[in-house]
């Protein structure tokens, strides 16, 4: 691969998150380097999704520090995160069900569009021009993900696998520098998984997008990720390159299991 893994751009330090009395995350630290594919694995309820939610500001940790591109902060704010180049997909697809595929992808460009509602209402000049420009960008994403045929279909009518792909598309439409994927391959068949892997690797390769992903399919994780962090009961129990993690006895006991 041509890509070069760069410096640490996101550094999470001693993150703890509680909901009332429930400890979701306890004292977790790890970092993400530019252009890498970083996986978060662990059993159900380990706090993986909570971790992603902390990274892009949906949840606010009680303790810890987040250093993003050299900027120290206590927590992230969703809007700042989006502006800072974060885009993500969700574990249970969070598409806008009443809208077409095209419109869903267009919302991904929202932050880049500058016209206000009055210009939209009049639809003259700049508003129309802007709409067309961004439509062109969105069509590139549609091409890339091979979903031309369902462009105008309301997403609610699509099968699960395609919805997952559209959700990735919406994230890509924002041209993110960092992509957070929450179980992008859950519930997919082998063929769909292969497609999704290909898309993830292509995005990483062609656009240099940094990717943080949560996934349960160990074959996939070990194959495509550069480094893996392992969580269990809200604590970090392993961190390192796939081979390293695979042989970590604590990780094997908690999650991977032994081979028979």
């Amino acid at each position, binding site marked *: 691969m041509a890509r070069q893994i760069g410096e640490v751009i996101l550094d999470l330090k001693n993150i703890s998150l509680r*909901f009332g009395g429930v400890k979701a995350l306890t004292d977790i630290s790890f970092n993400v380097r530019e252009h890498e594919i970083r996986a978060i694995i662990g059993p159900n309820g380990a706090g993986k*999704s909570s971790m992603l*939610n902390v990274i892009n500001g*949906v949840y606010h940790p009680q303790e810890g520090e987040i250093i993003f591109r050299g900027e120290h902060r206590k927590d992230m704010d969703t809007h700042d995160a989006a502006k800072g180049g974060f885009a993500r997909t*969700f*574990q*249970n697809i*969070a598409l806008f069900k009443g809208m077409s595929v095209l419109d869903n992808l267009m919302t991904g460009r929202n932050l880049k569009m500058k016209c206000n509602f009055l210009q939209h209402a009049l639809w003259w000049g700049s508003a129309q021009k802007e709409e067309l420009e961004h439509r062109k960008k969105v069509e590139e994403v549609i091409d890339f993900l091979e979903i031309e045929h369902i462009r105008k279909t309301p997403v609610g009518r699509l099968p699960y696998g395609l919805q997952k792909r559209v959700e990735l598309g919406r994230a890509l439409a924002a041209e993110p520098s960092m992509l957070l994927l929450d179980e992008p391959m859950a519930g997919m068949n082998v063929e769909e998984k292969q497609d999704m892997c290909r898309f993830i690797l292509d995005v990483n390769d062609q656009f240099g997008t940094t990717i943080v992903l949560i996934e349960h399919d160990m074959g996939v994780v070990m194959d495509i990720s550069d480094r893996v962090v392992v969580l269990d009961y809200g604590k970090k129990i392993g961190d390192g390159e796939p081979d390293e993690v695979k042989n970590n006895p604590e990780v094997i006991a908690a999650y991977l299991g032994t081979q028979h």
Partner: protein
Amino acid sequence: MQFFLEVLIGGLLSGVMYSLVALGFVLIFKASGVFNFAQGAMVYFAALSLVGVMGKGAPLWLAFILAFGIMTILGIATEKFVLRKMVNQAPISLFMATIGLAFFIEGLAPLLWGNDVRALEIGLVDEPIPYLLDSFNIVVSSFDLTAAGLALALVAGLALFFQFTRVGRALRAVADDHQAALSIGIPLQHIWALVWAVAGFVALVAGMLWGSRNGVQFALTFTALKALPVLILGGFTSVPGAIVGGLIIGASEKLAEIYIPPVMQSMFGGNFGGIEGWFPYVMALLFLLVRPEGLFGEKHIDRV
């Protein structure tokens, strides 16, 4: 001070009546997730049925039973023809459907029983309680007190019913998770019909009390509008919330009606009566800004 106490007590007692209507909302919301806007229309329908049957010569107890029968039929019909067909629709659609239901009932009731204002005699007298009047010089209506007592007894009875009977347990299970309840063999539709019948019963008691006080008339449907701020204050799922909310709304509304208009009059001139109509709403709204889940509601965490 005496006057203040009088207003306060009067407010609290009418607050119990608001609680009673709010309770009907809470029951249905807990069991089926439906915010039943038609509860007020049901109060009207129940009271009209009660006087209607009494007008045919039945004594109160018999009329009460028959009216309860009518409310049960209405509840079962609602479940069968409306709710059952709307399973899996968004809660807000169900809410809008109950607005439709309210209109339907508001048309049906006078069509069946006529739309004259009817007096309802249930044997309670509306006089100041002598003891309080003599000892403390406070006027408290014996009717209000009896009605409040009846309402509280009903609330307590329902609470026991849901806590300690098999049906009550099934109902709480349904409230918690429809599908899980279904999977362990709880007959969902029976439970829903039952809950609507119980809500009909609550509406009947409320309608009887309000109706005997103010006459049975279309204005009874507005009891729903009185109960909504109570729900906001108390939380949609909390029986204690409905009671406490009702008391707070009842008391503050009456106090506001007495004490605020004179202040406004001195500021702007003119007559500012009738703030009862909106005061509870604005109060509930301001409260929401501080505590969106209501007094006793549960804090909700969005999982993504």
